[in-house]
């Protein structure tokens, strides 16, 4: 399974702004620009360049070979669930080998703070397609899909697929499906419904997608980045993949860094690197806190340098109830009150409800209102009492993960910034600013917390 080209491609180590492992041409990618939907001229690797970089696409895999390789590589899903990929593969494999299954690469990337999936598809679509078609072949899948949010990524995949057809590749047919730019569009069941030509809204199911996904068939659904890693592991082998390893997770991952940094953008980070190392590369300054994992992730309270020594892998982060999530690090500066920032994000998320389930429709605005009372120091005790009453009425009662993600954000804020909340209780705030501009929300999503607190 190991190819001779493996020697010329290094497993990445440390944190690099440019994703060397798979794209040496990557120019700076500024999240601000990605937010607004503009694209800079970033080069897509052509099929010829792709093959000269990584070598030919290997064939002739069996299920057991792939499964062993992924287990040794310890590849986890890159959409936030941190589930070992070989187990997911096994679930689909065992669910049904006769009726046929479907494979889906999820590039909905609905977290506004993430650009990794979009950038990966724009610049390196062949690597994702490689992983997708290899797995489709191994499982004898009936169909393979890439679910994608932005136009540039869509056309990059189309161009790549055209090149492959023209070169006479005989491989599984890949269908590209557009994801709408809504927050819930990336939920697993939203993806399935959209592929089935329905709305990109979550659907309630008692069965897992691995058992009953697209058209009720077993479906292997994972983040697009996971498939890119597959494209590398199946070429160069699990040992190559683990060669940059020093922590629990192996291999590298794509991390989007934004907020109070001079060099925002996408980083490829090897395992075992500290959060502080990544922030140093990104030239972070005046760091008050870091949102780890995205809006459904959690807060790291930064009191001094030591707090940034935390190793960026899920086992270490887990001790602080944090997780890598979708590979997002949002840096908050000392000029911003973290509780106000968190409350703004929660208010934004409350508005992103798909409006299908009662507890989510009614509960999220109540959570946001209560949280805003705490953030704006208007009535902290009342806010806390209301949160305690409403959270049990919402938690685990939605048709998808959305409300639970919001609750996780609230809990993490309370856990990380207890001292700040105490100040608020006394009618103070560590940051004297009446005019809050959120650092970590898209420009067009700056809500009105004061209005939320008065609901």
């Amino acid at each position, binding site marked *: 399974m190991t190819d001779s080209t493996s020697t010329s491609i290094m497993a990445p180590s440390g944190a690099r702004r440019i994703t060397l492992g798979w794209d040496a041409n990557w120019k700076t990618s500024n999240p601000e620009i990605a937010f607004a939907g503009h694209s800079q001229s970033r080069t897509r690797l052509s099929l010829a360049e792709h093959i000269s970089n990584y070598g030919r696409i290997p064939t002739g895999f069996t299920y057991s070979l792939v499964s062993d390789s992924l287990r040794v590589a310890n590849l986890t899903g890159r959409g936030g669930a941190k589930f070992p990929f070989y187990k997911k593969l096994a679930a689909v494999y065992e669910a049904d080998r006769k009726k046929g299954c479907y494979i889906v690469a999820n590039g909905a990337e609905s977290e506004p703070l993430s650009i990794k999936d979009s950038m990966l598809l724009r610049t390196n679509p062949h690597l994702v397609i490689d992983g997708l078609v290899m797995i489709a072949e191994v499982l004898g899948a009936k169909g393979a899909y890439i679910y994608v949010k932005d136009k540039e990524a869509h056309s990059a995949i189309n161009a790549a697929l055209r090149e492959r057809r023209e070169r006479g590749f005989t491989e599984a047919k890949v269908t590209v499906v557009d994801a709408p730019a809504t927050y819930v569009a990336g939920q697993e069941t939203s993806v399935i419904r959209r592929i089935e030509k329905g709305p990109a*809204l*979550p*659907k*309630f199911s*008692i069965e897992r997608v691995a058992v009953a996904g697209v058209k009720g068939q077993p479906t292997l659904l994972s983040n697009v980045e996971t498939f890119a890693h597959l494209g590398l592991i199946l070429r160069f082998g699990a040992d190559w993949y683990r060669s940059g390893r020093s922590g629990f997770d192996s291999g590298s991952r794509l991390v989007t860094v934004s907020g109070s940094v001079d060099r925002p953008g996408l980083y490829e980070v090897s395992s075992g690197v500290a959060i502080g190392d990544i922030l140093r590369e990104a030239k972070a300054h005046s760091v008050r806190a870091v949102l780890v994992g995205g809006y459904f992730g959690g807060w790291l309270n930064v009191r001094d340098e030591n707090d940034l020594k935390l190793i960026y892998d899920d086992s270490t982060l887990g001790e602080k109830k944090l997780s890598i999530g979708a590979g997002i690090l949002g840096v908050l500066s000392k000029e911003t009150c973290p509780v106000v920032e968190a409350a703004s994000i929660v208010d934004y998320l409350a508005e992103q409800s798909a409006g*299908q*389930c*009662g*507890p*989510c429709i*009614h*509960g999220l605005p109540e959570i946001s209102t209560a949280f805003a009372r705490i953030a704006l120091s208007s009535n902290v005790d009342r806010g806390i009492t209301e949160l305690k009453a409403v959270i049990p*009425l919402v938690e685990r*009662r*939605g*048709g998808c993960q959305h409300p639970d993600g919001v609750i996780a954000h609230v809990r993490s804020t309370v856990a990380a910034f207890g001292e700040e909340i105490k100040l608020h209780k006394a009618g103070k705030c560590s940051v004297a600013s009446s005019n809050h501009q959120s650092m970590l929300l898209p420009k067009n999503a700056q809500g009105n917390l004061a209005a939320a607190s008065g609901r």
Partner: protein
Amino acid sequence: MKIVIDPTRCQGHGTCAALLAEYIEMDKWHYPILSKNQLKDSHMEAAKKAVQLCPELAIKIVEG
């Protein structure tokens, strides 16, 4: 057998809570909370009726 309610369908009409008071209470927004879901045999008839009468077809009885 157990009861499941699809929250994306349920519109909170409450018919189910009237039929299955032992299992379902309504929250303050008038949506059902399943306080327990393992069905006793003696309640099977009532549960089937709840399935039939839910105007949104939101209730199911499933294995488990």
